């Protein structure tokens, strides 16, 4: 039996998120092999012509329906899909999606405002998860499967402009470019008016 087969089968039986370590424990394979096989599965399953996809966040996997079929499946499972995200929730989730795993301090640095309450709300709603990062010795936050399902993507890497916004380095370069450009520009005439009074 190949590891791919075993994982496929387990994800189907459970229907819920399964972590690499849990999959490794049940299949008695090592985590690295599980990860490799799971990634292979994802590239096989996550194509437009398949009705079922495999979605991933952090180091967990789950089987889910192809988001293009939402119109059909929602009636069958009688899903409630009411509700809107508030602006602070959306903003916080966006940052965590692109920059997760992220600490509360890093999040607050980007939003410029205390995020304790909004994080708590998102944790309770199950849109965000907290983990202990052993290296950073800090709590880090990531998005959950529920948010992936809500966005209709298989993993955060599929978000628009993920590479650019995910890496601090890319973003820093981008921002610096803009600063340089701005300083090269001739001073706009608006400046004199700017200093009213």
């Amino acid at each position: 039996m190949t590891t791919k087969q075993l994982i496929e089968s387990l994800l189907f039986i459970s229907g819920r998120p399964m972590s690499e370590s849990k999959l490794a424990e049940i299949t008695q394979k090592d985590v690295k092999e599980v990860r490799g096989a799971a990634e292979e599965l994802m590239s096989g399953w996550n194509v437009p012509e398949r009705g079922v996809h495999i979605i991933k966040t952090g180091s967990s996997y789950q089987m889910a329906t192809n988001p293009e079929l939402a119109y059909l499946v929602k009636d069958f499972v009688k899903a409630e899909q009411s509700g809107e995200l508030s602006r602070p929730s959306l903003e916080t989730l966006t940052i965590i999606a692109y920059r997760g795993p992220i600490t509360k301090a890093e999040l607050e640095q980007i939003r410029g405002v205390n995020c304790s309450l909004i994080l708590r709300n998102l944790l309770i709603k199950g849109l965000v998860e907290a983990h202990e990062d052993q290296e950073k010795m800090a709590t880090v936050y990531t998005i959950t499967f529920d948010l992936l399902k809500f966005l209709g993507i298989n993993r955060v890497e599929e978000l628009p402009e993920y590479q650019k916004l995910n890496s601090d380095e890319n973003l820093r370069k981008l921002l610096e470019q803009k600063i340089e450009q701005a300083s090269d520009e001739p001073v706009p005439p608006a400046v004199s008016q700017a200093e009213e009074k």
Partner: protein
Amino acid sequence: MAYKFKLQQFEGPLDLLLQLIEQEEMDINQIALAHVTDQYLRYLNDSKDILPEELADFLVVAAKLLLIKSKSLLPGLQVDDDEGTDLERQLKMYKEFYEASKVLHKMILKRHFSFTREKMVVKIDRVFNPPKHLTSEKLRELFSDVLASLEVWVSMEHDVIIKTVSIRERIRNIQEMIGTKATLHFNELMKTAKNKTEVIVTFLAILELVKQRWVGVVQEGTFSDIVVRKIEGAEGEVVKETI
């Protein structure tokens, strides 16, 4: 200059700043930041939308803006440049994610949701499987820990309201002090501030009073104490719309 435009509800100080700059159709740079400083401060003073627990964050940005503004007014002023470019970079970064959040919002509105199966395809019988070393005493300990961790949430709002002083309160406070003393020393005033936030609030309050010609400030030498003095004929409440 009176501001007449209405801003959308804002989420935090960077959002307010971004909206002010976009309203002026300016790019994010030091000039734009200096330009909107007054509007920002006025919003801070008047707005009832700012949550008490977020006030401190708004004030930190106010302090950075004032530094940028003072540099643009006094080009010779020797100040460390970091704060200004920091704020500029921070605001640009915030804008990137703010724009991204609008894209995500559109994705969600498409309602292309994925669905997962809640029920397992196999039936799992319940078996009694308690944690081996669990005792009543262990339960009591764990529950006490849980209760202790609640303290921070329960007391949070209460604390913030007590600790923070609004700019308006501080203005009234300084007016009263100056009413009995006629002159005040800046250092003395700062000593009454209990934390960093209050230092900034006090500073902003004095600035507001200067702007409204309620007090004048005099400094004898470069490092000597600043004296705050009531201007002759200034009476009563501070009028809000003076400039």
